[in-house]
């Protein structure tokens, strides 16, 4: 018995004569669009849409914004960039994935409310079951991780919410976002290089690293990339592990020596592993955004960072954006308003627009164009 979408029984009757009382078969057109075998009920939005002949929307473009240490302006950058994206490109969802005090809602001037995450075991409905929060910015939706609870929201809001969320609900959340509630998603990751953070960072379409041109931020950014590299190397080593016990010690040594030398050593010992590692490194691309640039020489820090990381780690860095220091940004922060919405003549909007263009196109920053006219 066919349980597919309701077909108009009276339409497109078969040419052959039928006995009265029988259900006429489906028309040839509908039969050709049918999948092989019996039609299963649609389980996802895309398959539901495909079964009625509507093309599913493309998956959302996810940009993950991370940094080596906190305080470099990651949430500031994410919130203001989201505003620009909502203005120019389309609806965007900002996700605050900082479990230890994320302030995306503060920057947006909103309050933190617990949001329930859909249970991954339950059958998904086309709506996704996720309610995104909106503010007064059209096209900008947001979601705060700090309020996520693994249950259906029956916990007492007055009690502190557990900061960590399990992997599966997080995956479910990201999958829901990916299936296109909004065409753009910006993930405001937490500072540092936690495993989950690195996972989201690498899985995104654009992996953005925010950096301030000052030594502490640079050091932490280097540590971030070092952990990222170590993660990739460990995964490769695990995949190509030899049963011999000596490899464990060798793996330690590989993880502790210089990355480029680790690759060279690996190429001597285990060429297959080295090949997959090099191939993996080639697919990685980190987009660098320099925040709080105060001087032209700070831009050189970004360029030097790119060159040094490419030499040391063998990772490709794309210098995508430079945001100049805004001496009056603190005023907007006090008022809990987004800086780009202020009409005080700040060029932050233009800088973010340029950065957005580069991130979309995957191109490098043109340094002379970034330096503001005197």
């Amino acid at each position, binding site marked *: 018995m066919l349980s597919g979408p309701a077909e108009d029984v009276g339409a497109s009757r078969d040419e052959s004569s039928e006995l009265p009382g029988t259900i006429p078969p489906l028309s040839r057109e509908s039969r050709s669009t049918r999948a092989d075998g019996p039609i299963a009920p649609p389980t996802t939005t895309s398959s539901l849409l495909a079964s009625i002949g509507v093309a599913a929307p493309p998956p959302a473009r996810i940009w993950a914004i991370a940094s080596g240490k906190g305080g470099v302006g990651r949430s500031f950058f994410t919130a203001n960039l989201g505003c620009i994206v909502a203005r120019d490109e389309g609806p965007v969802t900002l996700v605050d994935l900082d479990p230890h005090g994320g302030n995306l809602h503060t920057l947006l001037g909103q309050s933190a409310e617990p949001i329930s995450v859909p249970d991954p075991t339950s059958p998904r409905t086309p709506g996704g079951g996720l309610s995104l929060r909106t503010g007064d910015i059209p096209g900008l939706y947001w979601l705060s991780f700090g309020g996520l609870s693994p249950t259906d929201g029956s916990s007492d809001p007055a009690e502190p919410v557990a900061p960590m969320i399990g992997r599966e609900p997080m995956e479910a959340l990201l999958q829901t976002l990916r299936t296109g509630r909004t065409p753009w998603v910006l993930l405001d990751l937490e500072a540092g290089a936690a495993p989950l953070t690195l996972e989201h960072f690498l899985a995104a379409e654009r992996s953005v690293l925010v950096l301030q041109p000052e030594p502490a931020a640079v050091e932490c950014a280097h540590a971030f990339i070092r952990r990222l590299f170590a993660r990739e190397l460990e995964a490769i080593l695990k995949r190509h592990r030899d049963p011999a016990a000596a490899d464990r010690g060798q793996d330690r040594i590989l*993880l502790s020596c210089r990355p480029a030398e680790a690759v060279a050593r690996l190429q001597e010992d285990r060429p297959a592993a080295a090949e997959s590692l090099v191939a993996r490194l080639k697919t990685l691309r980190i987009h660098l955004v320099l925040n709080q640039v105060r001087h032209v020489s700070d831009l050189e820090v970004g360029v030097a960072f790119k*060159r*040094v990381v490419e030499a040391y780690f063998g990772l490709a860095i794309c210098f995508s954006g430079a945001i100049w220091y805004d001496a009056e940004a603190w005023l907007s922060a006090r008022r809990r308003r987004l800086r780009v919405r202020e009409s005080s003549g700040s060029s932050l909007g233009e800088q973010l627009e340029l950065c957005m263009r580069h991130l979309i196109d995957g191109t490098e920053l043109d340094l002379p164009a970034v330096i503001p006219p005197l």
Partner: protein
Amino acid sequence: MAFVSRNYYELLEVTPTATSEEISLAYRAVRKSWRPDSIALYPLYSPEETAAIRSLLEEAHTVLSDPARRVDYDRYLRFTSRKLGPYSTWEEFWEAAHLEPSEPNLSDLPVVEESSDGRAASPTASEPALRAVVEAVAARSAPSPDGSAARSGPAPVPVASSGALTAGMPRARTPSPVPPAVTPPPPAHRPPMRPASPSELGPPVAEGSPARDAGGVRPQSGHLGRGLEAGGPTAVSARDPASATQSLPSMRSAPPSPEQPRISTDSIEARVAQSRPSPLRPESGAGAAQSDAAPAPAGRTPAPASVPVSPDNRAAAARSAPMPTTAQAPAPPEAAAEQRVDGGTSTGGWSRSYAAGLKPTRPLPEMPVPRDLLEQLEAQQGMGGAYLKAIREYKGISLNDIAAHTKVQTTYLKYLEEERFADLPPAVYVEGFVNQVARLLKLEVKRTVSGYMRRYYEIVSASGNGLDGF
């Protein structure tokens, strides 16, 4: 991998069709990223390593900005299918710069998640494998019994008072971390052989630039002999296995490890045939070598003091100058008879006019020879004329260049390489020639000379021609 294996164009981030102005601009731009005071640099590279990288960039700029050398280099790139730069790996680069990669940063190991086979979740010191590595590192840091400290903290204590280096000395050479399963740690098998830094040889040390000295060579110091006299490799290694690999003679004279496959002569010939180009023209440009020691290339930064002529060097230089007034060098049949000047002049006793005519026009290429090639050549052919010729050709130096720098006639140099001892001057002259050639090729002078002369005497006594009284 990515950086050091780039050719000169890629290092400067220019296309092969760039003009000289573009190359200069690109060099200045790239050099800015590698400034010693760059905050993007200091967490990853030490000052010595930064200096080494800067000198590599400078070499790229030097070669590419000179049209003649650039033509040669382009031809070389077209000839070799690899299209790579002077170095293939970082190890090669650090070895050439006489640097040791920075100490493994064990505290920066990532947090390891629980793996399927139940290993510890975090690399704490309680993990046996890590502890063994830590012990190996501590053992390396311990001072060796012969009194020379291998390493004193993160900043090695500068021993040389020559003041040539501004940013401290290159770190002591230490073996790579040994596999933790083996205790006490045997001589590390990879990287195979690392010569000790000058600091371990004790003061005073003739310090050259930390960067870009030819591979397989220590700076010229009188303590080479002391190191050799201190005992053979077995004595040193028996004394202290932990520091065995730190002493140079054990490194140099130990047989190649079994992991290294012996390179056949064909592959050596092939490699020599594919050797790097001679990016210099013999008679173009300006520049002069001042002493018979290895000349320092012009424009190198940081400007090191040239290798000071230590007493041993001076003795060697004096030895190369023929002292006896009675002994007359037999004139080579092809060369015209030239007036010999007796006495210990810096021209080595050759004709002043001849020596004056040949001026070293430009510094020799600083490209190092891989250590494994050196060892293979030596093991298979001995340190004879063919050895010198192979090294010379690999470095892309012509006989004219050697003649210009050493003031030894090209004819004699050719005979030296062909081992035509019958046509060469007496042994004392031959020894002087080999001394100068070895010094120029940045080889170990005493060892090369003794090896060559051993071969000389073997052949001469075997031939029974009565040369030099044999």
